[in-house]
C-alpha cells in the first residue's frame, strides 16, 4: 500500500494473507469456509496452485505473528474464464478458496459483505488494504504490517484513457474491461502495489463494508496519472454464490 497507514487491529478483520510458494498476496474472508482473492494469486504457470502450497493467515495485522497459524485450502476455484498465460489478460481475475475447517468469527476475523449490483459511483471513497509493497522515504519496501489507504473510485473512461496512454509507450499493458474498475488519485502517491493482489477494496454502505473490488493489476504504483485496477466483484456475485453452494 502506497501512501497509506498501518491498520490498527480489528479494523480490517476480513483481510487475509495468502502465501503461495513464498509469494505474497492478499485475500478476504467472505464466509466461514471461503476466502476470495485474485485468480492470479493462486494460479502458477497457468494452473491452480496445489492446495497444500496455499497457506492462509488471518486475524492479525503483523505478518510475523500471522505466520504462526496458517489455515489450508481444501480446494481452489478459479473463475472459469480467467486466462492469463502472458500476464496481460486480467479479465475475470477472481478465485475462491475453500477452507478445510470453518472459521469462528471474532473481532479480528470477520467476513466482508458481498456487494449489491451497480454500486460503483465515481468518487466514492473505498479502502484498499494489504501486506504488499509500501514506500518509506521514497524507497519501496515490503512491509510486515497491514496497511490501508482510502482511494476513490475513478470514472471508467478516465481510467481507460490512462491505460491507453501507457499502452502507447509500453508493450504488454493489460486491457481494461468492464469486469474491472479503477481507484486512485490523479496526483499519485496513494495506491495498492505488488503483494496486495487479491486484497479487498471495500466500500462502506451505511457503516457496513462490502467487497467492491479485488486488487488486480496496475501500471507502476502510486505514480501520478496512474490508477490501480480492481476486479469488479459485483459482476461475479452470481458465480460466487453458485460456487459456494456447489461446494
Amino acid at each position: 500500500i502506497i501512501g497509506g497507514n498501518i491498520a490498527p487491529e480489528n479494523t480490517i478483520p476480513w483481510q487475509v494473507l495468502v502465501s503461495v510458494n513464498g509469494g505474497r498476496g492478499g485475500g478476504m474472508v467472505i464466509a466461514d469456509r471461503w476466502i476470495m482473492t485474485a485468480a492470479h494469486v493462486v494460479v502458477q504457470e497457468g494452473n491452480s496452485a496445489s492446495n497444500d502450497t496455499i497457506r492462509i493467515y488471518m486475524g492479525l495485522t503483523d505478518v510475523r505473528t500471522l505466520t504462526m497459524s496458517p489455515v489450508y485450502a481444501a480446494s481452489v476455484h478459479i473463475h472459469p474464464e480467467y486466462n492469463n498465460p502472458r500476464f496481460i489478460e486480467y479479465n475475470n481475475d477472481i478465485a475462491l478458496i475453500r477452507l478445510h475447517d470453518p472459521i469462528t468469527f471474532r473481532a479480528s476475523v470477520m467476513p466482508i459483505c458481498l456487494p449489491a449490483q451497480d454500486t460503483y459511483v465515481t468518487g466514492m471513497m473505498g479502502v484498499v488494504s494489504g501486506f504488499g509493497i509500501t514506500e518509506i522515504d521514497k524507497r519501496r519496501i515490503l512491509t510486515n504490517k497491514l496497511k490501508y489507504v482510502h482511494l476513490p473510485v475513478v470514472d471508467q473512461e478516465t481510467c481507460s484513457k490512462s491505460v491507453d496512454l501507457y499502452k502507447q509507450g509500453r508493450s504488454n499493458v493489460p486491457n481494461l474491461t468492464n469486469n474491472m474498475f479503477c481507484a486512485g488519485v490523479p496526483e499519485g502517491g496513494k495506491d495498492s502495489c505488488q503483494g496486495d493482489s487479491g486484497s479487498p477494496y471495500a466500500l462502506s454502505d451505511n457503516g457496513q463494508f462490502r467487497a467492491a473490488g479485488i486488487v488486480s493489476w496496475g501500471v507502476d504504483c502510486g505514480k501520478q496519472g496512474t490508477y490501480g485496477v480492481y476486479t469488479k466483484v459485483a459482476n461475479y456475485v452470481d458465480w460466487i454464490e453458485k460456487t459456494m453452494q456447489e461446494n
Partner: protein
Amino acid sequence: CWTLPDSGPLMHGEVQSPGYPQPYPPNLQEQWDLSVPEGYRIRLTFTHMDIEASAGCVYDSLTVLNNGKVLGKFCGSDNSADGHHPGNHPILSSGNRLTLIFQTDNNNPERHQNVGFSAHYQAIDIDECSAPEDASGPLCTQICLNTLGSYICSCRHGYELRSDQRSCVLSCGGGIFDEPEGFLFSPGYPNAPPYAVSCQYFISVEPGFTVSLNFSDNFHIESVDTQQGPSCLHHWLQVSIPDRDHIKLCGAKSPGLLVTNSNTVKLEYYTDDQGLSNGWSLDYTTQRMQCPFPGNVAKGRVTPMLTEYFYRDYIHVRCAQGYKLMMDGQELESFSTMCQSNGQWHLRLPECHIIDCGEPEPLLNGGVTFLSGFQNQYRSVIQYHCNEPFYSLLGGMNVSSTCESDRKWRSNHGDVVSPTCLPVCGRPTQHLSAYQR
C-alpha cells in the same frame, strides 16, 4: 326298548317230534329245554298232537315241566277218546324256562301211525309289578312300572329313589346350583319332613361374582335351650363359606340377608329323627365382586369416575397436558386396568410425571439462556442468542421458545425452533479513524 343280544334265548320258536309229520319211531327219549330272556315267561301252543293215546299216557307221552314241576303229561289226539290232550289251551311257564320230554315205548299200533306233535312257543312279558309280595315286601315301595322283560321303581314327588333302586327317601332338592340366582328350600318345606334328613346344597357361581342368601321369614329349625343360650344341638343348617368360620343356624328367627362375599357356599341341613323343624327357604342372588376405590392420580384423571367398581369394570388413566404416564420407571403410552374376579385391580395405578423437552439443541456460534422453568420441563422457556456482534440470528430477533406438551421446543407461533446464527459481515469492531483534515 333295548336290543337283545345276538346270541342267547330266542323270543319264539317251534318244537316238533322227531320225523314230524312222519310217524315217530319207537323207544324214544327226547328232551327240549326251552328258554326265553329273563323277565319273560314261555307260552307253549300246540298246533297238532297225535301221540298214541293211553290212559295216563303210559305208552307214549309228552311231558311238560316247569322248574321240575310237571305242568302236564299229554298224549292222544283231538279226536281220541283216550289220552290227555291239551286242546287249544296254551301252556304258560312261571319262569323263562320250560322243559319238554317226549317218550315212546317199543311198539306202535299197527292200524294207525301216530305222527307226534308240533308246537309253537313265544316269550310273554311278565308283569313283575303284579307279582305277589314275598317276604321282603313289595318290589317297589312307592311306584312300580312294568317294562318288557323287567320293571322299574319310581317315587312320588318330593322323594327320590334310593341306591337299592327299590325304596324311596324324602328328596333334599340338593345338589349344585350354578345359576346366577335361584330358590332353595328344605325337604317338605314349609312342613316338617317325616323323618331325619341330611341334605347338602352347593351354590357355585362364576368367579368374580358373590352370593347373597336371603332367607324367607318363615324359618324354623329346632333349637335347644342350654345354659349358654339356644343351641343348634340336634337340628341345624350349617353355612360354609371358604376362608370363614362355619355358621350354624337354628331357631325361629330368620337370618334374613346373608352376604357371603364368596362365589361358593355350602349349605348342610341336618335333623335327627326326633324333634320338629319345619325347615327354611331362601332366595340366592349374585353380585359382581367389588374392587376397592382406585384412588386419584396427581396431575391425572381416572375415567370413568364411579362411586363403586365391580368385576369386569375397566378404568383408564390420562395425564394432564404436559404430563406423561409412568409406572416403575417406564413410560406408558396408555393405561387401563380391570377389576378382576378376586376383587383386585389387575394393575395398580400409574403416576403422572411432568414431561421434559430435553436439552435444547445447541446453537452454533450462539447459546441458550433459560428464562423460566426447571430442568427443561413442560412450560420452561428458553431464549436463543447468537454471539454478537459477530453473529446474528436469522431474522434478526431473539428467539424464545417454550417446552410444549408434545415435548418440542416451540416458538410463540407454534413452530419448532431451530435457529441459525448468521455471520455479521463488514462491520468491524474498530474503525479506521481519520480525524485530520
